[in-house]
């Protein structure tokens, strides 16, 4: 592996020291996660109410989803979370050469997630299981389209978060190559790590809520 130059970090002028800066950044990120929880929490409320009002549609709709593909995607996200954690571990141990490969692995797993998602979407679109106005499938339950409305809204917003996470991973890789991360400084890695786990966390609930209804 090529030698990565080490670049020291200096705290911004309005902080007393690097510890205060790091604490502030982490506190900000936790607040942001609180915000994310309420954002997807809205979808959770919607899910609960819609499932109470259209129980049949959820059972039938879930039957149209492949638990194999969903399970595969869960595995992708869980492993990607692990590789991201390993990237931070490498930074902390000053193993600069390993940071980019671990970040790259995380990126590829996220990409695989989206590819699988894309296959699922195209299959649903092919069968006319798209929300509302273009819904053309004939289901046993008259409100089957409500399930697929929810499916596309929730997984779509989640996929958007995955996409944003991939952008952040690219940003981290660029910085890691320039030697920004080492035992003295990993704050951006930690922040993206928290974000990525939040994305994982949401999927952990989406998977049984949509794919495993019976």
């Amino acid at each position: 592996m090529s030698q990565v130059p080490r670049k020291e970090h200096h705290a911004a002028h309005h902080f007393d020291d690097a510890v205060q800066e790091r604490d502030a950044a982490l506190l900000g990120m936790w607040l942001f996660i609180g915000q994310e929880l309420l954002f997807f929490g809205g979808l959770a409320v919607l899910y609960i109410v819609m499932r109470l009002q259209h129980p049949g549609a959820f059972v039938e709709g879930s039957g149209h989803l492949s638990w194999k593909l969903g399970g595969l995607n869960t595995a992708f996200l869980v492993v990607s979370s692990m590789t991201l954690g390993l990237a931070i571990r490498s930074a902390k141990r000053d193993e600069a050469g390993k940071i980019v490969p671990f970040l790259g692995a995380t990126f590829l797993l996220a990409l695989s997630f989206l590819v699988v998602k894309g296959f699922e979407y195209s299959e649903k679109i092919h069968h006319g299981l798209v929300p509302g106005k273009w819904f053309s499938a004939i289901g046993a339950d008259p409100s089957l389209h409500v399930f697929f409305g929810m499916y596309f809204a929730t997984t779509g917003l989640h996929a958007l978060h995955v996409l944003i996470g991939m952008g952040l991973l690219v940003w981290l890789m660029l910085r890691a190559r320039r030697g920004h991360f080492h035992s003295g400084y990993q704050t951006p890695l930690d922040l993206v790590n928290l974000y990525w786990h939040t994305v994982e966390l949401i999927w952990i609930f989406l998977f049984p809520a949509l794919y495993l209804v019976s």
Partner: protein
Amino acid sequence: MSHHPDPNASYLESPAGFWPWLKSWLFTLDHKRIGILYFLGIVFSFGLGGFFAMVIRIELLRPHGLMLTHTQYNQVFTLHGAVMVFLFIIPSIPATIGNFVLPLLLGAKDVAFPRLNLLSFYIYLLGAVLAIFSLFSGAVDTGWTFYTPYSTQTGTAVISMTLAAFVLGFSSILTGINFIVTIHKLRAPGMGWFRIPLFAWATYATSIIQILATPVLAITLVLLILERTLGLGIFDPALGGDPVLFQHFFWFYSHPAVYIMILPAMGVMSEIITTHAQKDIFGYRFVAFSSIAIAVISFLVWGHHMYVSGQSLYANMIFSVLTLLVAIPSAIKVFNWVATLYGGHIHWRVPFLYAMGFIFLFLIGGFTGIILALLSLDVHLHDTYFIVAHFHYVMVGGTVMAFVGALHHWWPKMFGRMYSENWARVAFVLVFLGFNLTFFVQFILGSKGMPRRYHNYLDQFQPLHAFSTFGSWVLGLGFIVMTVYLIHSAFRGKKAPANPWESRTLEWQTASPPTTGNFEGTPTVTGGPYDYPRAGAAAGRNGRPE
């Protein structure tokens, strides 16, 4: 950033030349300059919303309208509401006064994340541009509440306006995160939690709501846009959705949002009253914790907007009780402010006049709030002018009075200039009088049964409507007078001393206007924020030495 200002020069000083000057403002990371940028945006929005308000009032001079069609009237009242709520009141005190004053109050050099701060300003700007774009692309006519299924059916520009509100929500969330971290991490040495000025406590409580309630608005608006474009079938009954569920979603944000509007105003009151009464606050901890209590309870009361919506009777009962509970911390604040006056040295300057005006109007807003929290009364008064009058008493009588009071209180600090005390008194009288003339009659109109959002109305209501319209002209005149003398002051006003009100809080212990670095060295705090000298030993007081 290209411009590296001298930390010991006034923050208003810019490099020579137009482009360097413009660049130094547009790319500034200084919280004070960002506060001023927000101030300009917010004043513009207030002007726009105020213009719509005037159009509404003039249109209502006659029972069958004067110059607008039904659609145009509906668009005008929607735009008035949306602009005033999303572009003006929600960011008004936190983003302008908060940005400018909060780090100074805490003895900090800046907010925790200056770049995020600038970003949230540009997000605000983007939201404002979207809102104004929607104005020209078939202005939305749903009312600012975007109730389904009307909002999924109407032919007007719902999507661009909801997108604007969505974007503005992000600006609000980022500001909230920034402020909480600032209060936690950047207080001056010696400033323990109970030495924080009360405005910072109020901002803290506001930020909690901004962070935890706004995302629900975001998801609601995303779902509304998806419902309108794709037809998800969740809010639109024609597709099997539940329109009452939309109201739950909408009010889960929009009721706490009312407290995003009023809590900072309450914080401003605590600062103005202690400073101009030269007196420690009565019951510091009660005032501080009542802010947090209001923030928490505000999440539990949204259902009082839905007593007649088809919400179940059980939910009505629960929401009614919870709503009444929120009256208690609000009352605690008012009682403590009044008790603070006891034994003070009160100087009736303009900011104090606004504080007294606030107490008067907030009392009326609060008492009518109790009437509306009660089930049997709200059923009659819901969706009538009584509601309109009530929330204008809280939002205009509360928040706008506090915003204008804060402006007069911190004006010398912000611009380093004094304004004309006499003209300011004239403007206060006009605003206070005009406001009451405009809105008090609307309580009567509502009790009599006049529904809101009516373009045409029964002839019998005309005298009261006309009275209200005349009042609005007095109110408008008050704001025009204020604009004139404040603009005059900003350029020609007398130079302000560092601490014209002899306040004890930290922002007055630095130059007026403050230096770019805020303080020379880091201030150290050794006492509470309002340790004014007691009793007769009052002569010749200055602020604490630096």
